[in-house]
């Protein structure tokens, strides 16, 4: 039997459907996650199923008490999700675009992330916040951001950045079953990505990197969309006689230091590709970790490929110039030889 392929959104949808079937405490909330609330002629069915259709069909199966459309009140509903998680529900909240986190930042930074610690371990916040991130959609400065570094910085939050449909499903199921607050980043350009996804439910552990391509000469640690760019870059490098290992951390907090160090020990060279702005991002964090713990393995300086220290421009040629791409990654790698 041919292995079944799903696209990125379908894999996420299936993860949520299976978890909602398994556990009645799992609820979805967010703006237009169903859409068409109280519109008579829709008879309870959804109008949108999320802005990219990722939650489409779920309201039909689980009803509006478990797929809850919210007003445009991010502080309110994200805070409510934190409170509900602390008192027994297991919400999956959808923050349409990661830039809107700006609106509800207190509820994450000062509430959700810290409740457990401040309460001496007496609370847990089993909440997943799914959010769209990334450039390339010509969506301009407020709708194209890559902010996983910001959230990875905060103790109490876990951060997950899947790059394939397979990882998306397994990581989302793990996130839903996890007892901590997880922020789950979905790249806006992943809609068309297809891949083999098992039909049954399965989990992928947090803090376990995946080697997306094995290689000998240089390690490329790549996050989210950069995994795909790095695989393209690796093909180019192959033509140049260099064998690149592409490593996908999959979760940034917790982070799999061991697999990165093992790879660098083997290759002696490290490129880190991250679409974040370059200051205080996950790439600088990984670079510091390797400089500290793997200095002796290195035959060349560590190279980082990131977006520049500017907001995301709208105009297509500017945005293309802004974004990291396969060529920038392969050039950085070649510069190490």
């Amino acid at each position, binding site marked *: 039997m041919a292995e079944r392929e799903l696209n990125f959104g379908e894999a996420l949808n299936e993860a949520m459907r299976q978890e909602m079937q398994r556990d009645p405490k799992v609820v979805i909330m967010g*703006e*237009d996650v169903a*859409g*068409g*609330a*109280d*519109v008579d*002629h*829709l008879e309870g069915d959804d*109008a*949108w199923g999320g*802005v990219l259709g990722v939650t489409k069909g779920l309201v039909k199966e689980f009803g509006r008490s478990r797929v809850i*459309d919210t*007003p*445009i*009140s*991010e*502080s*309110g509903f994200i805070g409510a999700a934190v409170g509900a998680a602390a008192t027994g529900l297991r919400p999956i909240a959808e923050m349409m675009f990661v*830039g*809107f986190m*700006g*609106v509800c930042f207190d509820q994450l930074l000062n509430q959700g992330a810290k409740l457990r610690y401040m309460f001496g371990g007496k609370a847990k916040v089993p909440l997943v916040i799914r959010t769209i991130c990334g450039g390339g*959609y*010509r*969506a*301009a*400065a*407020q*709708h194209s951001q890559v902010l996983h570094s910001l959230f990875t910085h905060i103790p109490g939050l876990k951060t997950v950045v899947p790059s394939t449909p397979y990882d998306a499903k397994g990581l989302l199921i793990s996130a839903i079953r996890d007892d901590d607050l997880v922020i789950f980043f979905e790249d806006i350009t992943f809609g068309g990505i297809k891949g083999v996804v098992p039909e049954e439910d399965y989990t992928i552990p947090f803090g376990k990197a995946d080697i997306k391509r094995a290689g000998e000469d240089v390690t490329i640690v790549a996050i989210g969309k950069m995994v795909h760019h790095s695989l393209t870059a690796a093909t180019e490098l192959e033509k140049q006689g260099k064998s690149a290992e592409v490593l996908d951390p999959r979760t940034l907090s917790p982070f799999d230091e061991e697999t990165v160090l093992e790879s660098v020990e083997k290759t002696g060279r490290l490129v880190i590709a991250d679409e974040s702005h370059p200051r205080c991002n996950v790439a600088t964090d990984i670079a510091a970790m390797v400089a500290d713990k793997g200095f002796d393995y290195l035959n060349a300086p560590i190279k980082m490929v990131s977006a*520049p*220290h*500017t*907001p995301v*421009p*709208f*105009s*297509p*040629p*500017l945005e293309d*110039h*802004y974004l990291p791409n396969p060529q920038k990654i392969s050039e950085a790698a070649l510069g190490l030889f």
Partner: protein
Amino acid sequence: MDIPKDKLLWIYERMQLIRVFETRVSTEFGKGKIPGFVHLYAGEEAVAVGICAHLTDADYMTSTHRGHGHCVAKGVDVRGMMAELFGKATGICKGKGGSMHIADMDKGMLGANGIVGGGPPLACGSGLTAKTNGTDQVTICFFGDGASEQGTLHESLNLAAIWKLPIIFVAENNGYAESTPAHYHCSVENIADRAAAYNMPGVTIDGNDLFAVYESAHEAVARARAGQGPSLLECKTYRHFGHFEGDAQTYKIAEENEKYRTELDPIKRFKDAVLPRGLISEDELAAIDQRVNAAIDEAVTFAEDSPFPEVQETFTDVYVNY
């Protein structure tokens, strides 16, 4: 309330300019000429124009993701706007902002906004500047029914009230926030009822009736200019297009949609009001239509012919000094 003839002509021209601009944007977007997201204002013209009829370039405005109409009503150049939507170097923001971030500081236009509820606090800021400087400038703060559920709006209403800021908060209640109807997301039937909680006047009007908007805005603007503080004006209206281009709009009620595009259309209603009374002639309207169509054709040609920005522009304008 009588509106002087030259103002009536201006009003018609601006409403028509918005309508033709938006219709053309829809076409160009469909052709793939306009990247990203666009949210069209068509159907709501009487709100922006009826209010901006009382403003000068010195007055301020904050806007929303559905901001093209506000910009046109405030007098922002349609060539620069179109070029901005095309991402060109001649765009009003050099192609760096696009549809959701059109701004023109010279016209007091403090930006469309990609963040729902992003505008009201900024409006308190321009209100505070005007008050501190002792000018009679007012700020118009446009926001949607969906935005009325953001905390920022409520904080801003209170700030404006306690500081007696010269602001007119304009709720553009088009019945929906994306695919979610206002009767679901909003705790009150009329957003203007919330004004009472902030101790300011609040009125709800038919936002597709240009004359009603003009009259209510006249009062609110006069109050603000006289230093008597903010008001909340709710205009009930409807958008002709989807939330953004590409929206299937299954949540809309078909008959209602049809009615708003025909008999309740604000431009049609304006014409029906002025023509029989002889306030404006058919010929005068036709002349305006011709001018408007030519202006939009010209704007599209200008946008198409303009170059994209140089890639070095990616790195400019982040700071004044660095």
